[in-house]
């Protein structure tokens, strides 16, 4: 039996307690007398959260292992406090079969740093034309429950309707990348507004997101099925979701850390590190998103971690790849802009970064209360730690980090995944680079 004692952590930021973990399960909470064979993790004063769950990451394997692998992405996830991540289907080949989903599952398990949950494509090849083998993916060992064509919108209303109907028997959900391709085509690379007008960049108007979300919540009502809105970026979308929830429609939504902070004006220097889809929006939208996360209209924070090789970001702005890193900085950003401002407390953070995403994604063993009988997925946070982000120190294989050089308050100091410490920098006030070796040494990378 392997034993781990986590000593003196403040559960959800409230009362201090010890946690005894035996064979990956929490077996005692309170004042624990340390068994002689137990590993002790001194967490005095740290906030203990249920392991974080990310509904939206891109791990690039298979296909673009030069940008990220399941191993490097898992290491970044563990460093960010995540014990489960949902790997989007837009790999090469696309995760649109049971075999492809099981392969992602197995690669994640072999790595063992975090639970890698494959997301299945809604349509074959993400082409938006024919349904992928949703049922076979659901029945596979990967037990796929979240389906998404992310990167592309399921824009054909008929396909969307059929997908929503078809996934009902197995409790699936469609995570929609809401972007009407007629209102915001492939060339749209920047929020449509004053900045895009001045810069002469093709705009991506908020209405291209809002009109799809409005349609989708009505389709969810019509089908009685479940819809999840990926990376909400506008105040208008928030209004639609708030209305839909008031109607009892089964809709959930996520917001990325970057859409909670970064704004359109960062594009004035044409730096492709800020090119992301959906685009960075103006301050009014950012404020509405924070408020919606605080009042529960938006259920979850998801990173949309999108690693890219350096050269894919060194093109002209319109030609550069969309996306930014997010796994390692997510908790720090949420701590900085939501907790320090009083919009959320740590119990709320547990809800939006663990409990709710686990529930939306259908992971019964994740996002559980820190109580006897729960699987030991635990994230330990120092709420007062200042972190100055260094892109070079990332565990990700990529460096497209928009937070580089920014100072954030609050940091993940240790992560426990299924009873095993997958990340621990409590004593490493040292650099993140040094930590890379510490966290990856046992990980068979």
């Amino acid at each position, binding site marked *: 039996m392997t034993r781990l004692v986590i000593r003196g952590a403040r559960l959800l930021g409230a009362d201090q307690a010890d946690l005894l973990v035996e064979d990956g399960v929490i077996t005692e909470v309170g004042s624990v007398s340390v068994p002689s064979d137990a590993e002790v993790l001194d967490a005095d004063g740290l906030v203990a959260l249920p392991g974080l769950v990310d509904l939206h990451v891109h791990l690039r394997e298979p296909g673009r292992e030069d940008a990220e692998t399941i191993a490097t992405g898992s290491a970044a996830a563990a460093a960010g406090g995540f014990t489960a991540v949902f790997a989007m289907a837009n790999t090469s080949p696309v995760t649109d079969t049971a075999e492809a989903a099981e392969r992602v599952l197995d690669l994640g398990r072999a790595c063992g740093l975090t639970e890698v949950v494959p997301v299945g494509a809604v349509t074959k090849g993400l082409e938006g034309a024919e349904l992928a083998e949703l049922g076979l993916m659901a029945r596979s060992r990967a037990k796929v429950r979240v389906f998404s064509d992310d990167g592309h919108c399921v824009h054909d209303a008929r396909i969307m309707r059929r997908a929503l109907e078809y996934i009902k028997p197995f409790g699936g959900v469609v995570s929609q990348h809401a972007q009407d391709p007629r209102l915001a085509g492939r060339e749209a690379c920047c929020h*449509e*507004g*004053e*900045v*895009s*007008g*001045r*810069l*002469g*960049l093709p*705009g991506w*108007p908020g209405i291209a997101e809002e009109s799809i979300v409005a349609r989708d919540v009505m389709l969810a009502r019509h089908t009685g099925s479940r819809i999840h809105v990926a990376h909400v970026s506008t105040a208008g979308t928030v209004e639609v979701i708030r209305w839909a929830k008031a109607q009892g429609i089964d809709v959930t939504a996520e917001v990325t850390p970057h859409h909670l902070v970064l704004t359109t004006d960062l594009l004035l*220097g*044409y730096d492709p590190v800020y090119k992301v889809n959906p685009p960075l929006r103006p301050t009014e939208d950012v404020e509405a998103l924070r408020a919606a996360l605080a009042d529960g209209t938006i259920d979850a924070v998801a990173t949309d971690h999108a690693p890219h090789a350096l*050269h*894919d970001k*060194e*093109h*002209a*702005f*319109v*030609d550069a790849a969309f996306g930014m890193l997010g796994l390692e900085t997510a908790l720090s950003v949420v701590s900085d802009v939501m907790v320090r401002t009083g919009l959320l407390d740590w119990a709320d953070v547990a809800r939006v970064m663990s409990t709710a995403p686990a529930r939306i994604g259908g992971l019964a063993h994740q996002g559980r209360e820190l109580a006897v009988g729960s699987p030991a997925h635990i994230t330990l946070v120092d709420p007062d730690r200042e972190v100055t982000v260094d892109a070079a120190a990332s565990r990700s294989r990529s460096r497209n980090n928009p937070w580089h050089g920014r100072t954030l308050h609050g940091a993940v100091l240790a992560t426990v995944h299924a009873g095993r410490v997958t990340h621990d920098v409590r004593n490493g006030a040292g650099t993140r680079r040094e930590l890379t070796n510490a966290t990856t040494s046992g990980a068979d990378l």
Partner: protein
Amino acid sequence: MTKHLISSADLSRAEVEDILETAASMHDLQRREVKKVPTLRGRTVINFFFEDSTRTRSSFEIAGKWMSADTINLSAKGSSTSKGESLRDTAMTVDAMAVDALVIRHHASGACHQVAQWVRCSVINAGDGTHEHPTQALLDAYTLRTRLGDLDGKHVVIVGDLTHSRVFRSNVITLKTLGARVTVVAPPTLMPSGIGAWSAADGFATSWDLDPVLDGEGEHGPVDAVMMLRVQRERMSGGYFPTAREYTVGYGLTRDRLERLVARNDDVLVLHPGPMNRGLEIAPEAADSPQSVVLDQVSAGVAVRMAVLYHLLAGEDTPAPMPASATEGAVR
């Protein structure tokens, strides 16, 4: 003077005026039999055109040659991604040849801005996507000043496809820098997004209706110059306007509109950056009228680009190309 010319906003009023004064002396040179001056001997200027261009490219090339710089033209049509090379690699490759200036025309907005951060040489924006075209704005200002004198308080109306126009974006900056009053006119579909906040912040006027502006109604006031922008016929398929005929009726400088303009002010100027769609945004009668300065713009193009090369590239020890008169007091 800055090292690069990426945006018209890089130039102060004094710098614009210096360049235009130098351009005036360069323009004199153009009328001589021997047009070459040794000013930039030993300097290398690469005209790197990622997009087709006739007048801008030839104008930069002639400007470089008359200044005795070694000028080389490179073209790379299509996006760099389609060639598999990043913009950064392309820029670094050229920069590694130790050139002095890179004149860039690129299909992507912001490309020159990005390249300037990677290379050691000077970068001159010869048009980036739908963003800016600062030397066009300088040559337009030169043309206007030649006829109108000081532009302080002069009213310039810019009409056409503003959304896709780099000429508009640079002109509105340079004209404001020189103290002119600017009104831009386009149908709502061809107005850039956010133009309301933008025009309020930068102090220019906007209108969806051309006639009240040309007639100087109300706050618009009298017109000193009208700049017609090219409208691409393919915009119709994007739903920007229904037909060419309808566009002309709403926004073309027709014969009738020209006559009304001239009746109010026969010194009014008609500009067009070219190439013109005769019969669409500008009637032939307007293009060929005594008020038209379209060819003056082309002619000024070479002189202005010589002046820009001089101000960006000439070192402290480089003698001014026209020692005596016009370049006196030129600031680098």
